[in-house]
């Protein structure tokens, strides 16, 4: 009788361990909200340009937001 909570607890842990990671991520057909423009890292080009300007003025760094450009300040 004393062991009962332990059994229940271990059952809960076992179920969580088995099923806990089964639903991670977003299914391919559920991406509509993620596909919206406002979900982009740089959804608004003006805002991105202002950020870029601040980095350039204060840190003398630019680029590095995409594949091209290094942000080394050597432009």
């Amino acid at each position: 009788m004393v062991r009962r909570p332990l059994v229940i607890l271990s059952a809960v842990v076992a179920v969580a361990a088995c099923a806990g990671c089964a639903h991670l991520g977003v299914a391919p057909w559920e991406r509509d909200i993620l596909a919206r423009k406002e979900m982009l890292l740089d959804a608004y080009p003006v805002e991105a340009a202002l950020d870029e300007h601040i980095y350039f003025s204060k840190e003398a760094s630019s680029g590095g937001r995409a594949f091209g450009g290094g942000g080394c300040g050597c432009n």
Partner: protein
Amino acid sequence: MLVLLALFAGDALAAEPLLDLDRVRGRVVVVDFWASWCTPCRRSIPWLNEMQAKYADRGLVIIGVNVDKSRGDAEQFLAAVPARFEIVYDPDGRLPAKFGVAAMPSSYVFDRSGKVVARHLGFQNARRAEYEKVLRELLHADGQSRAGLQ
């Protein structure tokens, strides 16, 4: 147990009220999963229209399953890219979960006996001829075997 599971899965698919495939048994069926936010769907839907127009009289049925959460998004998309085939709306994603859709768009091709014989992930313009060949062969081959039976 596995057999039971398989039977159950088959029954579950057959008994799905959103998509009644019994109604189109005996025809070659393409079930195409699409959404308004899916860019390749802008190309696949006109292609499906073309296939429908070309092969409907030979027994091809195309059913589009829309998985948009909002019906308005789907309608806006259809206003720009009209679909000339039946559309089933599944905002809760019950059908794609059942089919195990792995990419958008995805299409499943059923032969005349109702068995899935092909699955296309995504839609590539370069593979149009290949997709069409699958349909043509099914329409043709099944037509022949049926003729042989009669």
